[in-house]
């Protein structure tokens, strides 16, 4: 592998032929450093600083632009329907009535299902990887869990449609409803079609697991060794060390990781669109089809019949944007508190 070398860049032919003192800005880039004019250097440095400053500014500008564009596009619907947009459950493009309550509820319910399933698995896995796994297991296993995050949403959706939905329809749903008699509760009632809020929650749980696991592992590893050694020295078992000394130290980081997973679950689109059934319906039963905000936009946007419909979909996008901004902001803040560095 070639290492960067100073002489190669200094003695290129072009750098020799260029005038040095006469052309401060244009000449200085390739001029031999020893004879470069100080002014040229200063100007070039300023230009460089301004350039990277400009690139850095692109990040807040982009975010602001998204916020404004989507907000302005959704404003007509928000103004027309007011607070009822969030609470009404009538979504009728023909009559021009739009209420996003079913989609908002669906988003929250599917996300909760996802977190309830994914959090214990991700946290357990993270504890195993950070504290108990032998080193030859650690790397490959962490890699495999990370790979879950690399699988595209649409592939999860495809798998969901042809593997998960039949499995739910034939086995899982009848088992929950009839064998476990959970059909007596309002949550597991009704015919087992397959496409359902439950299916969306399940697929989301797989999708957010790697994010929660990655952040949890990182904050657990960031807990100082001395913390563990102190607990062990006091006679704690290895598990007591985890619950008594490690987790309290990493608590806010772990919570941050879970909230980060929540952010992912709230905005996940393709896989959910493919398995949730896409119906504007508010049902207590997890077996019933539903909608999430993201799947509502994905499903109806290209068929938006009129300006109000389009604006209503934009408004749904804006509400989703606001929720995820707040959720992600809180998550990042919590993770930073514990000193986990990234992801």
């Amino acid at each position, binding site marked *: 592998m070639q290492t960067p070398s100073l002489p190669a860049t200094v003695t290129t032919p072009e750098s020799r032929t260029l005038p040095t003192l006469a052309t401060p800005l244009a000449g200085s*880039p390739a001029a031999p450093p020893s004879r470069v004019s100080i002014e040229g250097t200063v100007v070039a440095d300023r230009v460089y600083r301004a350039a990277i400053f400009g690139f850095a500014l692109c*990040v807040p500008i982009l975010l602001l632009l998204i916020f404004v564009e989507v907000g302005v596009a959704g404003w007509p619907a928000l103004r027309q329907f007011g607070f009822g947009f969030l609470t009404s459950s009538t979504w009728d493009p023909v009559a021009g009535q739009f209420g996003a309550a079913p989609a908002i509820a669906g988003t929250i319910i599917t996300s909760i299902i996802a977190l309830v399933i994914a959090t214990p698995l991700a946290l357990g896995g993270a504890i*195993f990887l950070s504290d108990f796994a032998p080193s030859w297991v650690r790397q490959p296993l962490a890699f495999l869990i990370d790979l879950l995050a*690399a*699988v595209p949403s649409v592939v999860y959706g495809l798998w969901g449609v042809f593997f998960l939905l039949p499995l739910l329809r034939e086995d899982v749903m009848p088992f929950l409803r009839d064998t476990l008699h959970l059909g007596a509760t309002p949550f597991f009632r009704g015919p087992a079609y397959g496409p359902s809020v439950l299916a969306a929650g399940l697929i989301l749980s797989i999708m957010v697991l790697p994010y929660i696991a990655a952040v949890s592992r990182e904050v657990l590893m960031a807990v100082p060794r001395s913390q563990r050694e102190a607990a062990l020295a006091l006679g704690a078992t290895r598990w007591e060390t985890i619950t008594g000394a490690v987790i309290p130290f990493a608590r806010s980081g772990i919570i941050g990781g879970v909230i980060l997973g929540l952010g992912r679950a709230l905005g996940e689109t393709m896989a959910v669109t493919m398995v949730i059934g896409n119906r504007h319906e508010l049902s207590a039963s997890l077996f019933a089809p539903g909608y999430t905000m993201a799947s509502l936009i994905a499903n109806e946007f290209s068929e938006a019949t009129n300006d109000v419909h389009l604006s209503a979909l934009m408004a749904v996008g804006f509400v989703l944007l606001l929720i995820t901004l707040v959720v992600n902001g809180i998550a990042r803040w919590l993770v930073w508190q514990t000193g986990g560095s990234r992801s």
Partner: protein
Amino acid sequence: MSYVMVALTVVAAGLAIVPLVAILGYLIKQGAGALSLEFFTSMPKPVGEAGGGMVNAILGTLILIGIASSVGLPIGIGAGLYLAERGGTRLANLVRFLADVLNGLPSIVMGIFAWEFLVRPIGHFSALAGGAAIGAMMIPLVTRTTEEMVRTVPQSLREAALALGFPRWRTSLQIVLRTALGGIVTGVLVAVARVAGETAPLLFTAFGNQFFSTKLTQPIAALPLQVFVYAISPYDEWHAQAWAGALVLIALILIISVISRFVVRSKHGRAND
């Protein structure tokens, strides 16, 4: 008690990779049958005819990745350099925080934003709009990795370059950035792998195309879009093609991910010399 709980963490770790195995296994089982050389070289067949390929979508995805990279890489790397060199300032902290927030932005929101910003004013779907949408999604990832990698470059290297009379900007670009290049390439590959499979931002921007098109101002086909359309269609022949497309897509992503791992390894090997 202690042993039971430790055993439970092992079970949790095991359960966490069950879905991965299930998905990849099922994908290979379903996709391998439909995969052939024809898939890479021919156009989609009409409904009802088996076979055909997705050459337009494969090419389209590569073009979209190219556009996305030319949007996402300069901004991401530039912003990352800024964060690494101006680390402590208030603005830097804000940019870092917002980059993380942007990273968590739902992809569908990026899609409707790009539609509103790039498609609606122009009046038609285009490859450029789709590429820009997924390019914007690359920015936060590239920014954060660049920053991290540039930070690992020893201060002594900067000082050596400055002592030799290098201006700061050359020190930054030719010494610091080049030293950190291995890690940055990894970050870029991870970002590419992530956006290669993005579908939601392309739904209303690149839109998809049943024909062969490489025009940047026209709608363009993309592998994930094609997989989505075929998956929700009612035709068995199309389902087979969706599986094959998904297999190609995931192979592409896995290859990029694995390459990125090796880049890191070789980079670290060099840093330790």
